[in-house]
């Protein structure tokens, strides 16, 4: 081993050889960034330091293009709203108080680029990463939600990517013992070379168990535990997540750097961590994800007392001949880094031994203000940690509303031929129900375990996934994610608000009170001013919307460079909303209820077809204006749903979104396996297919009808008809038998994917 040490690039050597050539460009750094590193250090960086800075200053880790805009979330969060947050933006995951001494934490992350290269492992490690983020807050991960987006359903590459991604999400999540309680499945040509694999994880804990990622207490030990460190995933964040695949700029094709997941190790790590938390043996904790040890050590030190020394020789490695730079930037999965008081080290290691989780003391907290890493007795890293973790480069990227935006807005769907005869309307309902974006998702969700741990109250086909948190009090949470990217393309500001409104409404429709927002902002290249404009608009729309609704944005994730060549994906700010149910037995499932229940439509319907599923499915059209946003109406609707749920005035409910009332009726009838007789309010086509927001279909038991009407107050409400029978009978249209509807709705994905 001694000969290795002699070839190692140390701080001493770096000072002595200022002119040595360094591969900063290949590591994804720009000339001015490299110059800034030299300025910070007063010398050239060592090979290891260069590795640390290059991964930590990557777009993925540093948010260098988005930071200037993300600050707007904080600026728009009112103090009263902030109070309910126990931890917010900047932590591993946001944490909110959900009452009775319970806290919930949730966050979404993207694993888009790895999932295109290697669908199974890309998706699997996406689940693993977000689960560790939630675990690092001190919470038990209790469920996952998977918003997925692919190219056209019939495209050959979709048949390669989709089954692998679904198997990867299931293969990891199922083995980890986490119920999958929801998700999205959207097909659009813009995702053909760039699928979106986002994963949301929700966790729960007693409020006193909240753990923050900071290294406090000089002399406290730094313990690395979990899997060993290998060469997998080196450069994952800088190479995969922070540039487009063609890599024209660097003149060479980037090699895939996808990590490999081991869900068994993660399951054991989860249980081990929870036992460590319960025993009070953890002073600070951080998971190892993108940028591996570089990220964990610099972030812990930067957020704590400011210094840390690390002996890299102590890190258990699974490959021979790894260099310090490789060990520091490895993205091997299933690892955590804890700060432990010296007196607790023996107890900490004993718990790890019980779970057979390898754990090693690799360093300690200092007050030096430096992150110092040694290797074979020589110093290979000596940097101020804040410059790595929190004071990376910040770019004010140029942004410009694309000139094509006006044409897009002008191309309204008004001239598209609308079905008019009863037969045409009926055929359109059937064709829409069978279309890839609206058909049954069971082909996907049947591959995910939704039962494990026995607390899943709503999952498959639900508006929001509902989980019981406390078996005694029956307190629980509801989670939904949404984004209609076509609306975002037409108007990214309003599109982001519509995504927020829909997720908020989905949570409310399940009977929960929405309390917090998270997001995963998937966009094209930040170097494209048009994309940057979309991003800035979406951030402002989302932040302003959350402020109006009075719920905090507790965190989020940004994924840039989602494009194929120079064509970006549709702007896709996926929004997640978390809600609280005092008693999950009061949740409202999807459906039309029992025969005789009254069916009501809440909210106002307008002639709004811009960006609609109808325009997409029937005409392949995208243009015009998205539906109007009325957040006050959304809030009023949510209040009505919460009180009606609490009083038992609703038997069933279903949110109206893509496909409008027609699709909501189809899904609700199939969920209840019961038909309905409905009279449409207003012109049939608009009533059926418009996608106006702030609308919900509800089923009211006859005995609760008067109470329901009293509760409606100002919320527009119209009686559609009653539930019952074996078909969906819409006034004036030939009836739609449930068997025919189910056949159309069920057959599409199995026919496409086997």
């Amino acid at each position, binding site marked *: 081993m001694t000969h290795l040490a002699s070839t190692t690039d140390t701080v001493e050597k770096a000072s002595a050889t200022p002119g040595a050539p360094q591969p900063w460009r290949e590591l994804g750094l720009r000339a001015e960034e490299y110059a800034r590193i030299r300025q910070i250090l007063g010398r050239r960086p060592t090979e290891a330091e260069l590795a640390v800075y290059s991964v930590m200053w990557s777009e993925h880790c540093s948010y260098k293009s988005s930071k200037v805009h993300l600050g707007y979330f904080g600026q728009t969060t009112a103090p009263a709203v902030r109070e309910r947050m126990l931890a917010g933006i900047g932590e591993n995951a946001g944490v909110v108080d959900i009452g009775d001494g319970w806290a919930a934490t949730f966050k979404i992350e993207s694993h888009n680029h790895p999932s295109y290269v290697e669908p199974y492992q890309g998706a699997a490690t996406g689940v693993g990463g977000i689960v560790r983020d939630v675990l690092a807050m001190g919470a038990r991960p209790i469920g996952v939600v998977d918003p997925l987006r692919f190219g056209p359903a019939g495209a050959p590459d979709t048949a390669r990517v989709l089954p692998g991604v679904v*198997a990867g999400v*299931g*293969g990891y999540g*199922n*083995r*980890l*013992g986490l119920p999958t309680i929801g998700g999205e499945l959207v097909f659009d040509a813009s995702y053909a070379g760039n699928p979106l694999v986002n994963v949301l994880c929700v966790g729960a804990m007693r409020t006193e168990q909240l753990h923050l990622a900071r290294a406090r207490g000089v002399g406290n030990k730094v313990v690395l535990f979990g899997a060993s460190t290998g060469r997998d995933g080196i450069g994952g964040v800088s190479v995969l997540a922070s540039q487009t695949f063609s890599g024209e700029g660097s003149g060479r094709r980037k090699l895939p750097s996808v990590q490999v997941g*081991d*869900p*068994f*190790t993660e*399951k*054991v790590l989860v249980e081990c961590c929870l036992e460590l938390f319960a025993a009070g043996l953890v002073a600070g904790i951080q998971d190892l994800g993108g940028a591996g040890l570089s990220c964990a050590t610099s972030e812990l030190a930067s957020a704590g007392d400011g210094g840390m020394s690390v002996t890299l020789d102590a890190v258990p490695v699974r490959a021979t001949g790894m260099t310090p730079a490789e060990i520091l930037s490895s993205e091997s999965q299933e690892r955590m880094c804890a700060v432990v008081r010296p007196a607790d080290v023996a107890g900490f290691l004993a718990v790890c031994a019980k*779970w*057979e989780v390898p754990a090693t003391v690799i360093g300690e907290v200092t007050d030096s203000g430096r992150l110092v890493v040694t290797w074979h007795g020589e110093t290979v890293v000596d940097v101020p940690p804040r410059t790595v973790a929190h004071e990376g480069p910040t770019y004010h990227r140029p942004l410009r509303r694309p000139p094509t935006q006006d044409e897009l807005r002008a191309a309204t769907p008004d001239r598209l031929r609308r079905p008019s005869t009863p037969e045409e309307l009926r055929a359109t309902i059937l064709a829409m129900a069978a279309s890839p974006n609206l058909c049954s998702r069971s082909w996907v*969700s*049947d*591959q*995910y*375990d*939704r*039962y*494990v*741990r*026995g*607390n*899943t*109250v709503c999952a498959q086909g639900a508006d929001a996934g509902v989980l*019981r948190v406390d*078996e005694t009090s029956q307190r629980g949470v509801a989670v939904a994610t949404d984004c209609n990217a076509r609306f975002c393309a037409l108007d990214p500001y309003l599109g982001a608000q519509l995504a927020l409104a829909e997720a908020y409404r989905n949570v409310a429709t399940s009977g929960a009170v929405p309390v917090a927002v998270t997001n995963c902002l998937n966009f094209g290249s930040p170097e494209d001013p048009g994309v940057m404009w979309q991003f800035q608009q979406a951030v402002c729309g989302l932040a302003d919307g959350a402020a109006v609704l009075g719920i905090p944005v507790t965190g989020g994730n940004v994924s840039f460079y989602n494009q194929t060549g120079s064509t970006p994906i549709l702007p896709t700010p996926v929004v997640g909303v978390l809600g609280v149910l005092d008693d*999950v*037995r009061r949740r409202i499932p999807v459906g039309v209820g029992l025969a005789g229940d009254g069916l009501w439509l809440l909210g106002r319907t307008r002639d709004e077809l811009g960006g609609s599923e109808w325009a997409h499915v029937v005409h392949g059209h995208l243009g015009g204006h998205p539906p109007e946003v009325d957040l006050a109406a959304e809030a009023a609707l949510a209040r009505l749903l919460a009180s009606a749920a609490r009083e038992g005035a609703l038997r069933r409910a279903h949110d109206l979104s893509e496909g409008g009332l027609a699709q909501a009726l189809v899904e609700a009838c199939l969920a209840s396996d019961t038909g309905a007789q409905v009279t449409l309010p207003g012109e049939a086509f608009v009533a059926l297919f418009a996608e106006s927001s702030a609308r919900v279909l509800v089923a009211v038991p006859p005995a609760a009808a008067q109470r329901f009407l009293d509760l409606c107050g100002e919320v527009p409400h119209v009686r559609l008809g009653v539930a019952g029978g074996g078909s969906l009978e819409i006034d004036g249209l030939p009836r739609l038998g449930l068997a025919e509807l189910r056949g159309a709705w069920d057959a599409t994905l199995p026919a496409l994917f086997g």
Partner: protein
Amino acid sequence: MTGRIGVITFPGTLDDVDAARAVRLAGGEAVRLWHGDDDLRGVAAVILPGGFSYGDYLRAGAIAAFAPVMRPVLDAARRGMPVLGICNGFQILCEAGLLPGALVRNAGLRFVCREVALRVENRSTPWTSGYRSGAEITVPLKSGEGRYVADEGTLAELEAAGRVVFRYVDPAPSGALHDIAGVCSADGRVVGLMPHPEHAVDPLTGPGADGLAVFASVFASVVDAELREDRM
């Protein structure tokens, strides 16, 4: 102390909390057992829950069959202690030789999670005595390697002796031979099944409560045995 029923946790076991909850809901006391234990802490029956023991990267249940806790399980089973293996637990019992046959990859090669209808075909085991004869129950199935296979001779023997305890009412989603969902040992004391009765103990979180009778049956059986012992 009556009605102590053990629930084993192997590293990678996932449904242990569900099995323990089902035992409690049935009136019993769930005693948590660890894979490294070398005795069963005085329990009167034992459950091997679902999951992916040791990751199941080799062959489902192959490593767990050799875990330290399996030695006392094998001894107890030979003496007639009621043993239930659910999903991965069923796979482990087959690997350990307590039940005949094997569980292999689903015919469709995909993990399948859905509610299935089962017919209880043998109610003389301690795990099924609480069901009505020929009862049809709905419980979740969730597995990737749930296709029951055995050679023709073994299948004929199982059928002739009434050792098919649970059978899928509709064609088995896994492609299991004879639509077999669960079988028992020759003495009927050891039962294994792929679907999950512990996920059907409360209509709030499962398809109904059809699975509860599995746990109520064994609870009644062990309490009854304890009372008889007291009288002797």
